[in-house]
């Protein structure tokens, strides 16, 4: 495989880092429709995939893009699509099907302001969309939340790996700030084992009975059995794949909980609070599903207060409250949309809340 830019540090936009990493992860098919602030991903892929002789389609809509990805994934191929907010809304039906079909779809979702068309400022307003699903039925998407451009690359690798390992649609949930900002990034070789898809993928039924990938379950009893099986898989994911970063929580009175771009500022705020004598720590979920709920409930036994820092009207705060289950108060510092609250602003609000 022709590699692009491995083994040296380069300055790159998050969107390009994601696209570049996807190519290095062995993505064989890209399908997409433009929307700011993620259009660079499709632009990069259009040239690179053709150069490498891989599949690229300028889809006619996000409905088509997610379903093309579904089609490609049904053959076991590494395939992805990318989009943003109001356009990811159009993909919800496809994601629900892909979950039911147990297909390794990779979706890069670079959040912008909403609801509706909203605006192109960064936002974390699609935390619910990604973790709770806007599609129908009982399902989960695996959701990974990068916080730096380096993580945009690393977690793109991981998204392909987890999607194929668990045969479950996986979302890389970035935002307009991460997509558009430049940071140094170094591309490693794809670090994960290749997953054998030959036991289930469609390849034309040569010398075996045919395979059908379907979600239609006309009998309620079939659907019951199916969902029980699906949820065994989710239990496995919850037991094995939770990932988070924790700083200064050993003796903390107050723990900030923040993901993605807002965690960058929350991290600095926790440090500034320490300097001011406040025993602050930070827990940054890297996987939003599975959520580090168990760790939060352990911390709740010694921490006095949790405060989430988010760029939305307060979404993850609900999951922290569920995890903490009333043991201690959980507060919210937020900005509705835009660049995350500045560290000094977070410090000020924490001081008011404790």
């Amino acid at each position, binding site marked *: 495989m022709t590699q692009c830019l491995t083994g040296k540090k380069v300055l790159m936009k998050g969107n390009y880092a994601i696209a570049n990493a996807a190519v290095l992860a062995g993505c064989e098919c890209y399908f997409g429709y433009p929307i700011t602030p993620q259009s660079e991903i499709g632009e990069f892929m259009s040239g690179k995939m053709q150069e490498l002789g891989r599949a690229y389609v300028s889809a006619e809509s996000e409905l088509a893009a997610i379903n*093309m990805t*579904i*089609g490609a994934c*049904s*053959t076991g191929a590494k395939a992805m699509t990318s989009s943003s907010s109001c356009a990811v809304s159009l993909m919800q039906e496809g994601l629900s099907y892909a979950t039911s079909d147990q297909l390794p779809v990779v979706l890069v979702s670079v959040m912008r302001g909403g609801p509706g068309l909203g605006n192109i400022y960064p936002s974390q307003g699609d935390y619910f969309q990604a973790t709770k699903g806007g599609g129908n039925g009982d399902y989960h998407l695996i959701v990974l939340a990068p916080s730096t451009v380096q993580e945009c690359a690393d977690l793109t690798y991981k998204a392909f790996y987890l999607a194929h390992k668990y045969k479950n649609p996986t979302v890389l949930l970035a935002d307009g700030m991460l997509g558009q900002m430049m940071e140094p990034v170094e591309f490693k070789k794809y670090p994960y084992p290749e997953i054998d898809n030959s036991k289930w993928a469609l390849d*034309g039924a040569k*010398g075996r009975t045919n395979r059908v*990938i379907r979600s239609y379950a006309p009998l309620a009893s079939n659907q019951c059995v199916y969902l029980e099986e699906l949820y065994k898989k989710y239990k496995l994911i919850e037991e094995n794949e939770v990932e988070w970063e924790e700083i200064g929580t050993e003796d903390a009175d107050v723990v900030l909980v923040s993901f993605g771009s807002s965690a960058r500022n929350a991290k600095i705020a926790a440090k500034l609070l320490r300097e001011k004598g406040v025993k602050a720590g930070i827990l940054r979920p890297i996987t939003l599903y599975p959520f580090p709920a168990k760790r939060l409930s352990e911390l709740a036994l010694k921490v006095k207060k949790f405060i989430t820092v988010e760029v939305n009207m307060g979404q993850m705060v609900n999951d922290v409250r569920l995890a903490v289950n009333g043991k201690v108060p959980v507060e919210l510092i937020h900005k509705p949309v835009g660049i995350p609250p500045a560290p000094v602003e977070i410090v000020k609000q924490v001081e008011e809340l404790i």
Partner: protein
Amino acid sequence: MTTQVFKIPDSFKKDVRYTFCPGCDHGVAVRLVAEVLDELGLTQNTICAASIGCSVTIYDFLNIDTIESPHGRAMAVATGVKRAKPDKFVFTYQGDGDFASIGLAESMHAALRGEKISAICINNTTYGMTGGQLGPTTILGQVTTTSPTGRNLEYYGYPIKIAEHIALCDGTAFSARVSLDTVANIKKAKQAIKKAFEVQMKGLGLGFVEILSSCPTNWKMSPDKAHQRVREEMMPVFNLGIYKDVTQS
């Protein structure tokens, strides 16, 4: 000496319960698809994108790898399959509601891109599976559960002539409209399906066949009467014929 003149195609499953309504042309259409798959030696190199509608059960009858697509998205799913595995034979089997209403954008754009796939579309002038509502091909004057006094222009506008529209797309290699009302027409339908499959195999572009098809259940007619309706009411609006064939030009 006896000769076998009628056999179940190899592409057809032998021991399944048949779930289309009695007298429905879907059954004939699926059989023709199976025969053509056999004759072109495609059974073990094919991936089908099934659709939502009465057509969905195609995967219960055929011995081929199949993925079910969300309603209207079969052409997008087929595009993804074909782009990922260009050496596989890929086709969709869709109702007219699926292909030409909710999925019109996917259908037209697949044709415009000249996707090397084949599509079979069953035109029964109604949404069959949901109980016979007005669809994109419901003809003027036709009574359905959502056009209780018949399709009129004021409320519903015109039906779509699918084969003609697909023929207009530059990426289409073959587009035809056929019918299953007589033995002669069934033979022609099979030839058209074969042609639509062959243009894909030759890499010429999209192969498309629209099949005028009866829905005795929702039309509330005997299978015989339903075929009479195909002839008397549908054919004058939806003329049979080949609308594009790049192998002939």
